[in-house]
C-alpha cells in the first residue's frame, strides 16, 4: 500500500518535472517589436512574458511600462541583450540586419514574422506565436473567431449595400500642413475602407500627398483621418476652420468626418481590426443597425 503510494508519487514527480522541462524549453523572456505582433502576443495571453517592446508597440497601454528598445528598424544589439531575453519576436521590418545577427550570435532566438495584410499571413503568424507560447489551441481559436468576425462583417456590408450604395471614402494620414497624405489603392487603408463597406476614392498607389484642389475634385462623401487628436467636435471645428477647402467637401457639410487610430494601419492585421471595421461600417451606413454594441458612429 505504502509502496504503491510512493511509486505513484514518484511517477507524479517524474511527470511533473517532464512537464516543467517542456515549459522551460519555451522562451520565457520575450522582447517584441512591431505593433500588431505585440498586440497578438498580449491577446494570446503572453503579456507576462514580455520584458521589452519597441516604440511601435503601443497597445495595450500597459506596455508603456516596459523598457523601450527603440524603433523596430533601428534596434541596438546591446540594449536588447541587457534585457536578457530568450526570444526577440518582431515583424520582418525589424532591423538593421547586422544587429539581428549580433543578437542571434548571443544565443537569443530571433523570429521575424511577415506583415502582409491578409488572412494567410495572419494564420501563419498566429500559428507561430501560439507555438512559441505553447498554447496552439488558443491561437487556433483566436484565428477562427477573427475569420468569423470578418465574415459577419462582410455579410453585414452586403445587407447594408442592398439598401444604400457604398459611400465614397477618402483616408487621410495627417491633417497638419497644406497637403495631407491620402491612402492609395494598395494600402491597408483602402482594404479597411472596402471591408467596412466603403468605396475608396483614390486612384494612386501607396500614400501620396493630396493637394487642396484634388481634394475638392474627389469630393468624398466620408473622410477618415488617421489621427486620434481630431476625435472631438471642437477639434473637428478647428480643423475645418483651418482648412476651408476641407469644409467645402460633402463629407464635412454632412458631418461625416471620422477619426481612426493610426496604429491600425501599420504592421499587418491586428486584433483590433474587426472592432474598427464595425465602427467604420456603422458610420458609412448610419441607417443600418450597427453590427455590435460598440459600433456606434463616433460623435
Amino acid at each position, binding site marked *: 500500500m505504502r509502496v504503491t503510494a510512493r511509486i505513484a508519487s514518484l511517477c507524479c514527480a517524474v511527470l511533473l518535472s517532464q512537464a516543467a522541462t517542456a515549459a522551460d524549453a519555451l522562451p520565457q523572456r520575450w522582447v517584441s517589436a512591431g505593433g500588431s505582433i505585440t498586440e497578438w502576443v498580449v491577446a494570446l495571453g503572453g503579456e507576462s512574458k514580455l520584458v*521589452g517592446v519597441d*516604440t511601435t508597440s503601443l497597445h495595450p497601454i500597459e506596455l508603456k511600462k516596459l*523598457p*523601450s*528598445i*527603440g*524603433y523596430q*528598424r*533601428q*534596434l*541596438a*544589439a*546591446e*540594449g*536588447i*541583450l*541587457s*534585457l536578457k531575453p530568450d526570444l526577440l519576436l518582431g515583424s520582418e*521590418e525589424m532591423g*538593421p*540586419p*547586422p*544587429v539581428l*545577427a*549580433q543578437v542571434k*550570435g*548571443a544565443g537569443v532566438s530571433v523570429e521575424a514574422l511577415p506583415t502582409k495584410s491578409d488572412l494567410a499571413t495572419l494564420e501563419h503568424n498566429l500559428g507561430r506565436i501560439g507555438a512559441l507560447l505553447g498554447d496552439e489551441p488558443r491561437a487556433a481559436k483566436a484565428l477562427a473567431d477573427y475569420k468569423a468576425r470578418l465574415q459577419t462583417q462582410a455579410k453585414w456590408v452586403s445587407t447594408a449595400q442592398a439598401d444604400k450604395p457604398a459611400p465614397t471614402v477618402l483616408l487621410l494620414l495627417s491633417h497638419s500642413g497644406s497637403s495631407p497624405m491620402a491612402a492609395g489603392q494598395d494600402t491597408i487603408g483602402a482594404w479597411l475602407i472596402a471591408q467596412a463597406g466603403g468605396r475608396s476614392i483614390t486612384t494612386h498607389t*501607396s*500614400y501620396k*500627398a493630396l493637394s487642396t484642389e484634388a481634394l475638392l475634385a474627389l469630393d468624398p462623401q466620408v473622410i477618415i483621418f488617421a489621427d486620434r487628436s481630431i476625435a472631438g467636435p471642437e477639434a473637428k471645428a478647428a480643423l475645418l476652420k483651418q482648412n476651408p477647402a476641407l469644409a467645402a467637401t460633402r463629407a464635412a457639410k454632412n458631418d461625416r468626418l471620422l477619426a481612426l487610430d493610426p496604429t491600425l494601419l*501599420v504592421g499587418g492585421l491586428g486584433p483590433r481590426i474587426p472592432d474598427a471595421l464595425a465602427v467604420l461600417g456603422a458610420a458609412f451606413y448610419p441607417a443600418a443597425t450597427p453590427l455590435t454594441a460598440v459600433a456606434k458612429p463616433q460623435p
Partner: protein
Amino acid sequence: MNPVVLPRSLFIALGLLLALALLFSLALGPVSLPWLDTLKATLRVFGAPLGGAELDQAELIIGQIRMPRTLLGLAVGAVLALSGVAMQGLFRNPLADPGLVGVSSGAALGAAMAIVGGAWLGGLPDAIAPYLLSACAFAGGLVVTALVYRLGSRNGQTSVSTMLLAGIALTALAGAVIGLFTYLADDATLRTLTFWNLGSLNGASYSRLWPLLVVTLAVGLWLPKRAKALNALLLGESEARHLGFEVERVKRELVFCTALGVGAAVAAAGMIGFIGLVVPHLVRLLVGPDHRVLLPASALAGAALLLFADVLARMVLAPAELPIGIVTALIGAPFFLYLLLRGRA
C-alpha cells in the same frame, strides 16, 4: 591667432582623452559588466586564454558588439576631422566643411538610391543587400566630388571659388533628387532614409569595417605629408606656388583624400555632422593654424569626441538608442558657440 597651449601638451592631453574614450567605449553599455570581467574579456578577445564559460557572454558583447563599434567610431571620427582640416585648408576658410565639395550630398544621394531602389527591386539576396547601401553611398560621394572638381577646373587650373560654387549647386541638385526619392518612397523606406541621415555606429561588424579602416589609415598617413603645403596655401595660392609647391597637385590630392575619407565614413556610419566642421576649428583655436600639429591633433580629437558621443548615444535611452548625429550636434554646437564668444571677448 596665438596658440593657447603648446603642441606637446595638447598631444599628451588628447592622447589621454582618446585613451579614456576607448576605455569608456569598451566598458560602458546597456549591459553592465563588472570592470574586471570587461578587462578579462577584452584580453580574451585579443587571444589571452583567460577565464571560463562565465566570460562567454562578456566576450561576445565586447568582441562582437563593442569592439567593432569602437573601431568604427575611432575611424569615422578621425577621418571626418582630417577631411575637415583638409577642406578648411583648401578653401582657406574655417567655416568650410567636408560637405562643401559635394561628397556628403553625393553619398546621401547614393544612399537614397540604394534604399529606395532596393525597396523597389524587392528581395535582394542577403549577401548583397547590406553592402549595397554602403557601396552606393561611397560611389555617390566620389562621383559628385569628381564632378565638382571637373566643374572647378579649366585649362589645368582649378579655381577654388568655382569649385565652391559648383559644390553648392550640385548639393542643391542632389537635395532635389533626394527629395524626389523621398516623395516616391513608401512609409517604411522613408523611416530608413531619415534614420540613415542621422547616422549611427549601431550594428558595426568587422566585415564592413575593414574598408573604412584601410581608407582612414591611408588618409591619416597621406595628409600629414601635405601639412607644409597646406601651411603655404594659407598664404594664398600664388604664394604657395612661388614657395615651390605644386599647388594643383596638392589641391587634387586634398579633394581626393576628402572624397575617399568622407565617402567611406558616410558609407559605414551614415551622415554624422559637426565633427568635420568643428573639431578642426576647435583644435585651431587651441594650438594655432600649423597643419603639422593641426592634422594629427584633429584626428585624435575627432576620434575621442565621436567615441564619447557614441557612449552617450547608447546609454541615455537604454535599451533604446539615440542616433549619434543628434548627440554630436547637441554636445558640439554649444561648445563651439562658447569658444566663439570667449574668443570675441
